[in-house]
């Protein structure tokens, strides 16, 4: 308790820095108790990002599993863990998929996104829904909130993007102030693309360049948000979101075979969510969230050699979710919180064929209770939480998975070892219970209610350095984090052939890695600013299931040992030119780690130019992006080739 005042002075400074409008970009926030990485709306063009998956692919420790093309599935893997270990929050509330636990990040366009943050472990703020404490990492998407004055009560942003893949993507964002307290935002877009792209067919001796077809997309999304705020500490929001899409799933590229007639996927996702937040002067902080959602998925394989001649499956999942969190600041340096989340999920299916066993129609009730605390003592900052997960499952037909009651603790700490606040050390331990999804448990043909849930232990030890500078450089931030993840009962889905697959607990995995991030900005000349961001990750993710197995200590599939993401740009205020480079070392696509199991590494370069100008007093933003400039042919997933060079033009006006 020697330097409490110093410590608080520092946090206050940080807060003010964010609020004060200054011409130079603020120093990126890196000195958090656990690693976090953030990208804001103004950097999306800089990173050639079209959707959420593109925006986060440069983060260290992140691998995007990309099946290729504009309509292709894109899921996130953080620090060698499966997509099920990263929960995605949309304005603080989870986009939950009880069916398969993975969120397709290609669904989310960036037009209404203010910022995206990836937290390893959990967010530092402890007044959060209990779900925020439940995953190995949290990807938080924050949408644009209106900040309008009575002078101009509206702000309309309209734009259009087009280019390769036959992309046609108009969008509209309308922000409206209704009164002192009320405002709304409506965001909508259309996305149409034929999805065609060139790829190189390898392995059959032809090495011919072919056209990938069947990955067309037609999607529409509308998001309406209503805001009420008495003041900054008493506010309410209501979101209604509807997403509709019709996509082609071209399937794997199979050697010698004619291109398969593409399967089709229709999604209709609807949710309504409401949040209320109140902060009292007496130290209490309340956060209430409610959500209702219904996700409908229709899958059609138009050419399947069963009696019906096709596979036609409909899945409807519903969720009712209620969360309440209450935090109390006991003293200036001690805050405690309690959060409770209750959710009810069900899944129903409809098939055009007779399944081997009737679908069980599961319903799951999940109750999460979490106690958390933040405590600062001198230069040491501590955060601890204990999460209890309680699930009760029932099925209409067959046998339900057993109830679970699991405690998952987390402990985080950061310390400022020296007098100067620029350098900090941090570390955390987190235990994660990854519940089984409905697909893991009940999907045909083998229904295995005895499957065990996956348990993961996360350890992190890191250092951060952040300094604002007044000379040639404006700032420099450097983060280095070493981590260790230990997974038991790792769940693995193994497709054997079209009608024969299984989900098993494949055993244990040890993942050791290093994430390094550097960010800096410099005044290159009087008018030109340069930014540079470099993220490097090393991941040794090994199979430690069975010492007698030939796979023992082998690298897990689809995890590159080395990845590097570099983004550099120069910016003139009106004009920005940016260069983006992603480098991945070779990966394996099965457990053997031999030459037959090798997916070559790749190095992909993108560039963009953004120009902002006024025409008839209307601000216009135009950008031109080239992805994969050097037209490299590569795959992230075996048999799913990625596109070669592609272009995108955007034009946006703000009224």
């Amino acid at each position: 308790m020697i330097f409490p005042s110093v410590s608080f002075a520092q946090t206050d400074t940080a807060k003010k820095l964010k609020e004060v409008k200054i011409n130079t970009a603020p120093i990126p926030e890196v000195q958090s108790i656990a690693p976090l990485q953030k990208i804001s709306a103004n950097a999306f063009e800089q990173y050639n990002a079209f959707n959420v998956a593109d925006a986060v692919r440069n983060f260290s420790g992140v691998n995007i599993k990309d099946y290729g093309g504009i309509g292709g599935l894109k899921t996130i893997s953080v620090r060698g863990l499966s997509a099920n270990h990263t929960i995605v929050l949309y304005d603080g509330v989870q986009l939950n998929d009880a069916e398969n636990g993975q969120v397709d990040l290609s669904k989310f366009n960036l037009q209404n996104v203010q910022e995206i943050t990836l937290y390893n472990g959990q967010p530092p703020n402890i007044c959060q829904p209990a779900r925020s404490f439940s995953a190995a990492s949290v990807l938080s998407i924050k949408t644009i909130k209106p900040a309008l004055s009575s002078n101009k009560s509206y702000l309309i942003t309209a734009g259009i993007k087009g280019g390769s893949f036959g992309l046609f993507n108009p969008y509209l964002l309308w922000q409206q102030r209704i009164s002192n307290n009320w405002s709304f935002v409506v965001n909508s877009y259309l996305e149409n693309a034929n999805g065609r792209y060139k790829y190189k067919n390898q392995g059959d001796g032809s090495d011919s360049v072919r056209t990938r077809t069947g990955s067309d997309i037609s999607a529409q999304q509308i998001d309406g948000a209503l805001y009420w705020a008495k003041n900054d500490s008493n506010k309410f929001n209501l979101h209604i979101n509807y997403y509709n899409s019709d996509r082609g799933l071209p399937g794997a590229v199979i050697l010698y075979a004619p291109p398969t007639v593409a399967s089709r996927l229709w999604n209709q996702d609807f949710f309504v969510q409401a949040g209320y937040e109140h902060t009292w002067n007496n130290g209490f902080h309340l956060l209430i969230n409610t959500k209702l959602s219904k996700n409908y998925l229709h899958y059609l394989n138009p050419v399947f050699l069963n009696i019906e001649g096709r596979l036609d499956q409909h899945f409807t999942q519903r969720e009712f979710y209620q969360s309440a969190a209450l935090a109390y600041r006991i003293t200036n340096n001690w805050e405690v919180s309690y959060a409770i989340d209750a959710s009810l999920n069900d899944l129903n299916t409809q098939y055009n064929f007779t399944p081997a066993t009737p679908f069980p129609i599961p319903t799951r009730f999940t109750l999460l209770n979490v106690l958390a605390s933040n405590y600062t003592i001198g230069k040491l900052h501590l955060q601890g939480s204990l999460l209890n997960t309680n699930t009760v499952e029932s099925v209409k037909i067959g046998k339900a998975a057993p109830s679970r009651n699991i405690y998952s603790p987390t402990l985080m700490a950061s310390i400022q070892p020296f007098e100067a606040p620029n350098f900090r050390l941090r570390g955390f331990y987190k235990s994660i219970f990854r519940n089984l999804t409905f697909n893991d448990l009940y999907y045909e043909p083998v229904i295995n209610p005895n499957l065990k849930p996956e348990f993961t232990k996360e350890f992190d030890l890191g250092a951060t350095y952040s300094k604002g500078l007044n000379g040639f450089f404006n700032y420099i931030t450097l983060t280095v984090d070493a981590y260790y993840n230990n997974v038991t009962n790792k769940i693995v889905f193994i497709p054997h052939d079209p009608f024969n697959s299984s989900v098993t607990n494949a055993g244990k995995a040890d993942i050791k890695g290093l994430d390094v991030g550097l960010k800096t900005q410099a005044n290159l000349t009087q008018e030109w600013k340069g930014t540079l961001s470099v993220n490097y990750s090393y991941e040794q993710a090994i199979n430690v299931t069975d010492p007698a197995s030939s796979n023992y200590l082998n690298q897990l599939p689809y995890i590159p040992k080395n990845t590097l993401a570099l983004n550099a740009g120069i910016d003139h205020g009106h004009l920005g030119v940016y260069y983006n480079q992603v480098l991945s070392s070779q990966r394996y696509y099965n457990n053997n780690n031999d030459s037959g199991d090798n997916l070559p590494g790749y190095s992909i370069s993108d560039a963009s130019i953004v120009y902002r100008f006024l025409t008839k007093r209307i601000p216009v933003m135009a950008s031109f992006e080239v992805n994969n400039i050097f037209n490299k042919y590569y795959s992230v997933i075996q048999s799913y080739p990625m596109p070669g060079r592609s272009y995108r033009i955007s034009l946006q006006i703000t009224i």
Partner: protein
Amino acid sequence: MKQIRLNSLFIALALVTILASCHKDKVIPKQDTPIATRAGVYVLNQGGFNSNNSTLTYYDYTTKSLTADLYKTINGTDLGDTGNDAEIYGSKMYIVVNVSNVVDVVNAKTGKLIKQDSLVNNGVGRQPRSVAFYKGNAFITSYDGTVAVMDTASLAITKYITVGRNPEQLVVSNDKLYVANSGGLSFGNPDNTVSVIDLNTLAETKKIPVIANPVTITADSYGHVYVLSLGDFANILPGMTIIDNTTDAVKSQTNLSLGYNIPIAASGDFVYYVTADNKIAVYNAKTQAAAQTNFIIDGTTITTPYAISVDALSGEVFVSDAKDYSSNGTLYAFDKTGKLEYSITTGINPGRITFVNK
């Protein structure tokens, strides 16, 4: 060397004459020349589904050398996706590559590709699965409900015979072709028949009802055709149907404890198959009674028995292990008493074991 060859040829001729005179009407199910000498063994590895990594492992008996993928080594190209069957007829081997929808005809000794036949119907792959031979024709089942007839001289497909749903394995016995119609792609509504094809008219003559979802099939030299069925994973239990190859009547239907992989192989007096507890059960073809619950007597355990082949010459029983379905497998060679002789590493999902003569 020459001396030995001549001797072998002489003995072969003598044996063939004796055999021919002893069993005038009997058809020997396999084309093995009894005294031929083996050059080695091929293992066709399916690879991972949609991974385009099917491989052909070759183990040479003389040099004791292992070639992980002979097909790629010789031809420079990949075999494709899910090689499901490889059988030798004459000097050629016919490799059926299921998801790639091709049959690769290769030189049986070198692996050199002679011809690749595509089995595609109006732009849609037929999904070929298994191959058998009779009098100069190769018969190839495909999931689209057909048996393709390929002339082994011209290597052209001359006819498609319609059979039941999603036919899997097939066997020639008593001058007839027996085809297991699985219907496995209609998950809750599998087929439950074996088609009988007249090999002279090349037409289906009847369908024999068997336990639902028949997948694997073999024949002994006592006039029996053995069919293993998966059932429907719910109400219909898996089991074995035995068919009399003279009357085509079902002799017996027995429910057995079978798992997902149900390879079966017959040789001499014994029929070998895999049970749900991953053991190799033995059935006596002569006495028509269960003989052993576990053929392996030396304690060797196999995680996922995936294919069985018996070398009729040596009596050795070869069993492959697919392990976790996404790692390289193992081929185990047992002597006729069930003791492990040696094991070699294969590719992923070793689904077919075939012996090649010198």
